[in-house]
């Protein structure tokens, strides 16, 4: 089974040389720490940064320099700053290659729900709806089951949707899954020490298991 760091490490391997990547809040943010050396990628933050760098050194924080999670950050050489319309312009026009974000539910046809629980305080979708409606490649990083022990990989979402038919891949503490064109979660890799049976028991949506499923090597 993977911890949060493990999920981030596994997702980092999906990041390829030359990609512009938008990382959501939570586990996705951790992915930046595990991108292999020698791979040149640029991180986009939807409040208007391309080429986002690490947190500033203590004492060097700048109130005018934050990321979409409102954390103080820095810029790397070659960075650029732009307004929010251009930021979503590059997202909608698919110049941002990869979006990694969390989810409350994903359905077997790629629908995602991650912004609203009816009856609870609703904080809003932020940029998530624009991101999922636009990116060619969307990877969800999430726990396989919710706090009540129910599967988050479902035949169809029960919560209000963020986007339809958009998720391409899911990485959870149990494994890696492709969301198939025709519907279904195709198991690609098992997390260390996790059996196909365990995954099957935790997956409410259609699970596709073809041939031998390798255990992930991190």
């Amino acid at each position, binding site marked *: 089974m993977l911890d949060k760091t493990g999920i981030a490490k596994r997702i980092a391997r999906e990041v390829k040389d030359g990609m512009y990547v938008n990382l959501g809040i939570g586990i996705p943010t951790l992915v930046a720490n595990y991108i292999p050396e020698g791979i040149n990628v640029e991180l986009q933050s939807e*409040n208007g940064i391309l080429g986002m760098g690490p947190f500033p050194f203590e004492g060097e924080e700048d*109130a005018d320099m*934050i990321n979409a999670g409102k954390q103080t950050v820095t810029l790397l050489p070659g960075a650029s700053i732009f307004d929010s319309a251009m930021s*979503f312009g590059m997202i909608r026009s698919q110049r941002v290659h990869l979006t990694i974000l969390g989810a409350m539910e994903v359905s077997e046809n790629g629908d995602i729900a991650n912004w609203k629980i009816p009856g609870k305080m609703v904080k809003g979708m932020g*940029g998530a709806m624009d991101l999922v*409606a636009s990116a060619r490649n969307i990877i969800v990083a999430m726990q396989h089951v919710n706090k009540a022990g129910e599967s988050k990989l479902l035949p169809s979402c029960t919560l209000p*949707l963020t986007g339809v038919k958009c998720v391409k891949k899911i990485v959870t503490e149990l494994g890696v899954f492709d969301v198939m064109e025709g519907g279904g979660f195709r198991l690609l890799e098992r997390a260390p020490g996790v059996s196909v049976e365990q995954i099957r028991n935790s997956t409410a949506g259609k699970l596709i298991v073809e041939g031998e499923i390798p255990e992930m090597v991190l």
Partner: protein
Amino acid sequence: MPINKVVYSAEEALADIRDNMTLLVGGFGLCGIPENCISELVRKGTKGLTCISNNAGVDDFGLGLLLQKKQIRKMISSYVGENAEFERQMLSGELEVELIPQGTLATRCMMAGYGIPAFYTPAGYGTEVGEGKESRRFTYKGQEKDYLMEYAFDADFALVKAWKGDTAGNVIYRQTARNFNPLMAMAGKITIVEVEELVQPGELDPNQVHTPGIYVDRIFQGTHYEKRIEQRTVRSK
């Protein structure tokens, strides 16, 4: 001489903002918010406001100050966490809230500034954001996809924070304090900009102006900027 847009205080700039008006308010979280304009609205006690702003501030800063005084009737935002008073007013029904995707919010401002009444975006299609809206299928760059029709905003005032500006109303923003500010600057029927530094015409490089003065109706030099940081994250040396 260029057209002079200078007013001498937030009080003068906001004098004709009245109850029940719709305001565009720049900033992302607490970054790049028009602190002086917000303080002046608190002082004036203007009520029943509809505020279009990406966020709603925190309990004791930014638009949170207006929420505390119950001056806001409706918020149009993309994300409104981090604010207990907001939550209380929303759940009790005192405050109306319309949540819209962040890119849609930004683009609806830009289109107002570009004189384009309506446009199509994929954000929110198939979700409750799309309910009651016109949708349409386009094939663009070889991909067939569904889009929602969205409208340009039509707001009475835009309250904008910039870094440097000249008396002709040309302004430059600094780092990510830019965010929604240049878009809202283009979108207000009347646009008010507060700057950290007001300079003379000719002191800004014309090639590097972010918002041309034609979009700015009033400009003033703000004072006492607090520029509060919402999430101070650092690494050690």
